[in-house]
């Protein structure tokens, strides 16, 4: 893909998205031909037909979809476009699949700056290239001003499963080691900081990134991966609870083993948030047999994006099914529960 995006002239007055850009007429065609097609140049998309026609890869498909709404659209370390790619790519990787194709549905708000759309599309293109996926189909709609929030993106993705055995909570076994691929909580705090105008000494950068490369390396090394999950909404604590419930096991984790960046920890302390419940967009949890744990960590730590991978806990042989227990830094144990709704900053 060349990634070159031509100047979006005329596009109406060229500065703002108009309702007519979604009307199906000349402006719609200009939008597609000048912004989207050049960014994602590939044979399937270039046909501009109603469907992309793709060769069938060998093996089972993984197929997923997700919608991306983030305010603000741009934040340190990413934007809604990059999120739309990495989020779906990562969901495919969590099934042990190699991501191949994406489709993107854009809902634009009337009045959106065309420059912002161009930036987001360029970011989609860069993230897709990085993750080696092709954007093969897309759609654009425009809603009236006030009925959207700049840009909403829905992305669906197809991948081919490379894991030799199903990767899922059902495969989790007692004594499995729980690994996390890096420091947690960066994305959520980065977005909250820009959204709410919180000034920290240096900007906190989102961890938004594809984890497909690391997952494929793990699978390629022969590690018997039982389960993978990316701790997006609700963070590590929520995902551990989901898996403990689905696998009907108790999971024990060590607070001191979970890395939280100094800046993220400081921001969470000030705001009264628990970083274990804050979203990550470029991390994953892996459940592997204890005997494979060291090898898995070696594979991950050899890659820059997962250099700080760590073993944080164990699936307990006995215990209460569905429970997650945290061994605290001070030496006590406590339940790591699901939150009720979102975390809210506290009074004092």
């Amino acid at each position, binding site marked *: 893909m060349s990634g070159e995006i031509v100047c979006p002239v005329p596009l109406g007055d060229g500065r703002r998205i108009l309702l007519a850009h979604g009307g199906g007429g000349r402006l719609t065609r200009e939008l597609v031909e000048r912004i989207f097609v050049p960014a994602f140049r590939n044979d399937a998309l270039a046909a501009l037909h109603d469907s992309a026609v793709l060769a069938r890869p060998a093996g089972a498909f993984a197929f997923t979809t997700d919608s991306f709404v983030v305010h603000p659209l741009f934040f340190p370390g990413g934007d809604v476009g990059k999120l739309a790619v990495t989020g779906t790519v990562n969901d495919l990787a969590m099934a042990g699949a190699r991501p191949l194709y994406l489709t993107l549905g854009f809902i634009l708000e009337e009045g959106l700056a065309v420059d912002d759309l161009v930036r987001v599309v360029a970011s989609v293109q860069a993230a897709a290239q990085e993750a080696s996926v092709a954007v093969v189909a897309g759609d654009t709609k425009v809603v009236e001003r006030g009925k959207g929030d700049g840009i909403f993106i829905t992305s669906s993705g197809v991948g081919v499963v490379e894991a030799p055995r199903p990767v899922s909570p059902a495969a989790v076994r007692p004594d499995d080691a729980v690994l996390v691929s890096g420091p947690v909580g960066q994305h959520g705090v980065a977005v909250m900081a820009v959204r*709410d105008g*919180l000034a920290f000494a240096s900007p906190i950068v989102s961890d938004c990134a594809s984890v497909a490369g690391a997952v494929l390396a793990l699978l390629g090394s022969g590690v018997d991966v039982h389960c993978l999950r990316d701790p997006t909404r609700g963070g590590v604590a929520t995902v551990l609870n989901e898996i403990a419930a689905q696998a009907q096991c108790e999971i024990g984790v060590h607070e001191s083993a979970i890395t939280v960046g*100094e800046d993220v*920890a*400081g921001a969470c*302390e000030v*705001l*009264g948030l628990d970083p274990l419940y804050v979203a990550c967009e470029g991390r994953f949890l892996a459940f592997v047999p204890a005997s494979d744990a060291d090898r898995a960590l070696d594979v991950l730590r050899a890659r820059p994006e997962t250099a700080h991978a760590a073993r944080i806990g164990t699936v307990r042989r006995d215990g*209460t099914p569905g*429970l997650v*227990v945290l061994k*605290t*830094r*001070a*030496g*006590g*144990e*406590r*339940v790591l*529960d699901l*939150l*009720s*709704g979102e975390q*809210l*900053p*506290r*009074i*004092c």
Partner: protein
Amino acid sequence: MKYLDEYRDGASAQRYAESLRAIVTRPWTLMEVCGGQTHSIVRYGIDEMLPPGVTLIHGPGCPVCVTPVGTLDRAFRIARQPGVVFTSFGDMLRVPGTQDDLLHVRADGGDVRIVYSPLDAVTIAEREPDRQVVFLAVGFETTAPANAMAVLLAARKRLTNFTVLLAQVRVPPALEAILQSPDCRVQAFLAAGHVCTVMGTAEYGPLCSEYHVPVVVTGFEPVDLLQGITMAVRQLEEGRSQVEIQYRRSVRPEGNPRARAALEEVFEIADRDWRGLGRIPRSGFALRATYAAFDAERRFPDAEPLAREDPECRAGLVLQGRLRPQECPAFGTRCTPDHPLGAPMVSSEGACAAYHLYRRRAHLAQVGAA
């Protein structure tokens, strides 16, 4: 993190627990005043590290919990009015009134915004002169200076579209009310470090001498709490009742004079209603007449009858330390963070929330065994 990690260190915590064990000769009951302390205690298992016989009971120091339900209902009615921007700290949003909370008001179209400082609400008022900006000013002496500063700033900028809905309370009268209750079991207080950072310690001297209770101004981390408990128990064992400061890295006996001057300028001491505790004389702040223009109760007159608590909620007893959260019949069943009957179940400093969040397994085991 410097100034935090050393106060969460497991080895130091153990050392304090041991030194406490060495001095205890009989049972003592202490109350930690602040909800932040309660959460630390339950979260880190501090109560389980104490020698047998040393009991902690949880105090009323959660600003969200003690805000009267009538004030909340009034807040929700104001927030629903067209043209109003209703601003609040985040953890007030889920607190239930009689039948509503701010999250539902927002979902119904009310313009409810989370701010991190009351000064942000003043900025909104400046930027949106056509709208009435109201700030829900709840809290203890810790939040009072920033709320006073917001009023002073709005006055200096001559804003006519900024008001505060005030539910500002003071700690010492509440402690006195607890000591006066006939079945009071409290023998010593761990006073709230941040409240005393603002106010200093002079207000607590009379409590010590009149009721013969030691007061130790204590911080919020595990090592702080264990040290504070040790200091209080040592006083009890030695028959002393004085004000001592454990939280020296933040508290001076005279408090913060500039913050106190701002309080003095904007507020006067007034009787206040506490959720669960009722009316306590001189237990809060009201705006002085000079600043009455910034009083949301005047800007939005309201004739609705005063709201009533859900009769099943025992928050009042919990807030006085007379009932442990898990002893409430509704705990974990009809009252959960998703469907709270009262504020202590949803506030980030609420005792019921702390037990529900961190001690659910113990509770499940108990219920299962019963």
